[in-house]
């Protein structure tokens, strides 16, 4: 009896959602799946979701006469959680567009779902350049940065400054491998050598052992191919063990939140690549001020990109008068982005090509106002920062 009721209830439930999925008059739904509670939650997380909502509000709350609704979910850095949530939203909520947050494993998994379901998928927080190379899809836009750009912008500058001999401390998952591989290529292309690498688990509890191994390699420079809490704890242990006296340390993916939490005295002089910094121009400062009033901290480049990407998408929907994935993708690839975050164009492989920056962390004395942390060392044009057409491994690029 119980079983019968259950089956009946399921049938009714499935039938109802099946019918619902056919409609295209309800709200335009934008989904956002990211790390909401673990080590990457500050650089993107709940505030990133709020930026998407801000963009929807600033756009007027409506597009094509339909209200805009933003759904958010925590993927807990698990690829299976991310992809099943994406699938659920696309099947049952008639999701129009998905924004992918931090962690490359989850982004690669969601890209497959989005490609299968034919929905635009804009990746912000995840870095693996595989998203627009081996695993590229006509529905993926890689909006903010990627591992190739980080490697080229930070790596080139460091190798040219004479740091030829590298050793990597790498987070043991898709993003870490991509970053280590891309950085190794840049080092070798500039005549440097890579002595070795040690891989640490994500969210590692202690870095001293890995750092000691790095030190015994006698390499000149230690590349940290990790991010978030792993980066800050590795930096902290490196200082404690005096690694920074025998080797130069390069953070390959550093966000302003990391610098803030470590403090300028622990990070002074560190060079890093990023796609945006709040104190760049008036429009960025205005956005940052609004963010600061709510969160009492400055936005990361990812949070700025979350806002910008949503705007870019909504503008494209308005321009083509439809949420049809193919039409919107074509429009976005035609017009690109143009706002305080960046002026960029979106290539056939989905890579957004825009300027990247090499920043250097100021010393405690140079920093005049709160969160005044970076000085710009170089502005690297997009076509030099990202994978070139010739280097691309994406089948969508015509060479």
């Amino acid at each position, binding site marked *: 009896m119980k079983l019968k009721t259950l089956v009946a209830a399921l049938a009714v439930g499935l039938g109802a959602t099946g019918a619902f999925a056919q409609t295209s008059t309800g709200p335009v739904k934008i989904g956002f799946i990211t790390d909401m509670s673990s080590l990457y939650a500050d650089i993107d997380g709940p505030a990133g979701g709020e930026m998407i909502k801000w963009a929807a509000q600033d756009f007027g709350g409506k597009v094509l006469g339909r209200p805009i609704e933003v759904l958010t979910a925590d993927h807990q850095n698990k690829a299976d959680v991310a992809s099943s949530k994406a699938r659920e939203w696309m099947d049952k909520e008639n999701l129009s567009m998905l924004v992918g947050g931090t962690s490359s494993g989850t982004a690669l998994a969601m890209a497959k779902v989005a490609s299968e379901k034919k929905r635009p998928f804009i990746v912000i927080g995840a870095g693996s350049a595989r998203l627009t190379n081996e695993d590229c899809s006509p529905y993926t836009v890689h909006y903010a940065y990627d591992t190739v750009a980080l490697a080229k912008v930070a790596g080139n500058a460091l190798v040219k400054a004479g740091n030829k001999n590298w050793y990597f401390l790498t987070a043991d998952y898709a993003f870490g491998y991509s970053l280590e591989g891309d950085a190794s290529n840049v080092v070798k292309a500039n005549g440097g050598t890579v002595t070795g690498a040690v891989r640490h688990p994500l*969210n590692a509890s202690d870095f001293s*052992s890995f750092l000691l191994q790095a030190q*015994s390699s006698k390499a000149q420079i230690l590349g940290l191919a990790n991010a978030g809490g792993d980066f*800050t704890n590795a930096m902290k242990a490196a200082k404690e063990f005096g690694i920074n006296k025998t080797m130069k340390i390069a953070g390959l993916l550093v966000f302003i939140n990391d610098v803030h939490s*470590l403090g300028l005295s622990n990070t002074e002089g560190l060079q890093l690549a990023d796609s945006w910094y709040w104190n760049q121009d008036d429009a960025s400062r205005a956005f940052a001020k609004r963010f600061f009033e709510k969160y009492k901290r400055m936005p990361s480049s990812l949070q700025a990109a979350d806002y910008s990407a949503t705007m870019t998408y909504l503008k494209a929907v308005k321009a083509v008068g439809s949420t049809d994935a193919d039409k919107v993708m074509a429009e976005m690839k035609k017009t690109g982005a143009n706002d305080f975050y960046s002026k960029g164009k979106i290539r056939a492989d989905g890579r957004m090509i825009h300027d990247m920056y090499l920043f250097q962390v100021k010393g405690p004395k140079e920093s005049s106002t709160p969160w005044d942390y970076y000085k710009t060392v170089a502005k690297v044009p997009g076509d030099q920062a990202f994978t070139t057409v010739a280097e691309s491994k994406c089948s969508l690029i015509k060479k």
Partner: protein
Amino acid sequence: MEIFGIPHQAFMGQLLLGLVNGAFYAMLSLGLAVIFGLLDIVNFAHGALYMLGAFSAWIMLDKWGVNYWFALILAPLVVGALGVIIERLFLKHLYGLDPLYGLLLTFGLSLILEGVFREQYGVSGQNYPVPELLSGATNLGFMVLPNYRAWVVVASLVVCLGTWFLIERTRLGAYLRAGTENAKLVQAFGVNVPLMVMLTYGAGAALAGLAGVLAAPIIQVTPLMGSNLIIVVFAVVVIGGMGSILGSVITGLGLGVVEGLTRVFYPEASSVVVFVVMVIVLILRPAGLFGKEA
């Protein structure tokens, strides 16, 4: 000279680092063992209490400029007091029930505590500086050991041995052990058993808080620092034998070393090696290395 294909010096260095991490495992699993042994509560809130210890120290420094040495005493007192409140408000209703209830309750508490701190402070973490007296490092010949880490090992050994002595070798400890065997009988002799149990949980919580303060200068103080550690610590307790005090200390140090060496030979496995050991121990000795077969 080489050991297992790595230079002797590097091997010694990694052994020592393993011991430092093991010191944390030992101190945390000690608190768990005391609480389980005397209260029959599987205290899942232990990681959150550890986090609270570190945060209390950081808040004291940040807000009132209380230095490390005072925090080392004050923060465990704060966490211990919270432990007493938790015991009085919640846990005392659960004695005599299936241990599963205690586990679920303390797990829920730890989620709440973590959530509150995550909401308030974010996950990026706060930087707690190494106290001046212990900054710097000593060259041991085979490695450069930061003075602070040496202090951690010494402090944790003193605390662990002190706790063991208190419980196994003093009259108070005898009351405690007797109280867990047969509370009614001990009460009949005029010992205030509920008070004793309350203070025991408070002391276990204070131990976790102390471990948190000791860890603060080494890692970023974040709301997640406890949950990253607690599962490993539970594995340590299971391997050592639930409730065995000396067992948890020895196992904690030993597994720290095993984990440290794994970081050299096969770094990718360093986060799972403890659980592999756990599986093997459970198959061969279900009661744990130092536990008594039921």
